[in-house]
């Protein structure tokens, strides 16, 4: 409720800015229009090309078919890559959730010094802030040095490290929103630290964990640049796409891309629901 009224007030405050339409307003609208077009035109093109044929660059609008989807499903390499991507995504997400929960709990202990927290967060955020190429090649070099062969494990580690920052951020925000008194009340009633975590904190973190997991999974599922350094014999889906693209356009890529896009958007929508919708339930 509070946010609704705040939004109304904010909207009213912006009213004077909206006022009469000047040249600047039209210009602004035009720029925004071009940006949205630039963001979505390519995607819609791919979408269209997954259903229609082209002849000399012209889309044949009367050639609707699902042939490319059929071709896609009979492509065993793509199926393998998809399965591998899913496995990597699950592993990296699970690892990142466990690790980030530990780090966020560790960082939110009140007596933790500001300095310790700063160093901790710097390390956590580093792989997200640095160009992926650096994360990729440094993990490649280390894994070679310790004799770890490239493959599932190295890719999972790369993805875990990459998504850690986002998961940590979401979980920390939620942990800080849980009233300290509630945790103290639990201890006061005779619960151990573990019981307090299990019965009080964890249930309140649930929806944040779900949202973080979905985001982490989506990021892992799409990750390409780090993976390129760490890949072994088995290829992930983006890498398979990359390989196919270097060879040239094949129409079934469009079908694959469309499916991946739809799945990504659905996942994002669900994650957004979780992040926004459940907060209200938690705080009375």
């Amino acid at each position, binding site marked *: 409720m509070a946010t609704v009224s705040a939004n109304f007030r904010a909207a009213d405050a912006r009213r004077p800015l909206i006022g009469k339409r000047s040249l600047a307003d039209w210009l602004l609208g035009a720029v925004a229009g071009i940006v949205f077009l630039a963001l979505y035109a390519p995607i819609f093109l791919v979408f269209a090309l997954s259903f229609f044929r082209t002849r000399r660059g012209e889309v044949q609008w009367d050639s609707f078919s699902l042939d490319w989807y059929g071709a896609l499903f009979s492509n065993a390499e793509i199926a393998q890559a998809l399965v591998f991507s899913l496995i990597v995504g699950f592993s990296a997400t699970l690892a990142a959730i466990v690790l980030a929960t530990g780090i966020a709990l560790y960082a939110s202990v009140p007596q933790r010094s500001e300095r310790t927290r700063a160093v901790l967060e710097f390390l956590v955020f580093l792989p997200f802030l640095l160009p992926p190429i650096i994360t990729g090649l440094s993990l490649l070099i280390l894994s070679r040095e310790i004799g770890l062969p490239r493959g599932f494990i190295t890719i999972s580690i790369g993805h875990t490290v990459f998504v850690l920052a986002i998961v940590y951020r979401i979980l920390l925000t939620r942990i800080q929103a849980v*009233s300290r*008194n*509630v945790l*103290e*009340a*639990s*201890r*006061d*009633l*005779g*619960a*151990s630290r573990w*019981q307090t975590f299990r*019965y*009080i904190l964890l*249930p*309140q973190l649930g929806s944040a964990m779900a949202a973080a997991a979905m985001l982490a999974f989506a990021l892992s599922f799409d990750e390409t640049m780090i993976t390129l350094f760490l890949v072994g014999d088995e290829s992930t889906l983006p890498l398979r796409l990359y390989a196919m693209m270097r060879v040239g356009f094949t129409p079934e890529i469009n079908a694959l891309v469309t499916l991946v896009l739809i799945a990504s958007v659905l996942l994002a929508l669900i994650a957004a629901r979780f992040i926004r919708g459940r907060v209200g*339930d*938690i*705080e*009375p």
Partner: protein
Amino acid sequence: MTQSPVDGGPLLSVRGLAMRYDATTALAAVDLDVQNGEFLTILGPSGSGKTTLLRLIGGFIEPSEGRILFDGVDIAHTAIEARPFNTVFQDYALFPHMNVAQNVGYGLMVRGRPKSEIAEKVAKYLEIVDLAGMERRHPAQLSGGQRQRVALARALICDPRLVLLDEPLAALDAGLRRQMQEFLKSIQRQTGVTFLFVTHDQDEAVTLSDRICVMAQGRVEQIGTARDIYYRPKSRFVATFFGDNNLIEGCRVTVDGACVETPLGVIDLAAPTALAGKRATLCIRPESLSPLSEGETADMSIQAQVTAVDFAGPVTRALLETDAGVRLSLKSFSRPERDSILAGARLTIGFTASATALIPAEAAP
């Protein structure tokens, strides 16, 4: 300082308990005895250290020094969950994701008690706090007073030896607050559990408590019954913290401690004082002063001029000035037949020696 222990000594003894954060002292060497079964209120303004004291006893924080003796054992550094005390928090601190029954039964659940026992005791305690039938509600669906009662039931269900209450009524509106005060008092009588209650509200402290511990600036100013605190203040802070009081400066107790010389005359002391031979300030409550009619007598009587009158329905307040130039305030029940309290009128005022109290004089300015 210490109160005489009633049968079998105190339940809890705090000795020299201090809490310091870097440069600031939240609590300075506090001594306090909590008797078994009493309703003891820690009263003080914000920053007086009352909440710090409560949190130290509850085990939420560890003291810089001092001991907390419980059954003769120092528990100052014992883990919070190992202390047989339970707390009612100011913001209730109910578990938002659990329903009323789960909240109340939590203490038993974490101790691994059988489900049937938990259900039985939850029902019993919800009955006590008058919330039967609310088991499935969530905290968000309850009113402030109901949440308060859930928090109370949750704190009582583990049969604690001591219940700590941290300004639990502060968030309630005045009407509900009075209702909850009576409720708390009756629950405490009914269960016989010792209550240690923190508040900044004098009226609340007086209404609820068997004894009051007044704190200011990290120190205990005085411990005693509401009457003690009200009529026998031991410090200037206590004398002025509760309602109006007349403080008459410039008094001196005779060397034998039998009487005190005041600007109002010499008053024979009813009880011995520790201030024999010292400079002192005399305290007397405005309602302890009464206008005398012709022929009436009192231990002490003085002449005074009424300088201002404030008729407030049932009571009339007046500002007086004695011939010696002492300003006094007087409060008495209004009576239609008595109209002697009029601005400009001269009055004879009487009071009894036992209604006065002596506190040490302020250090010379």
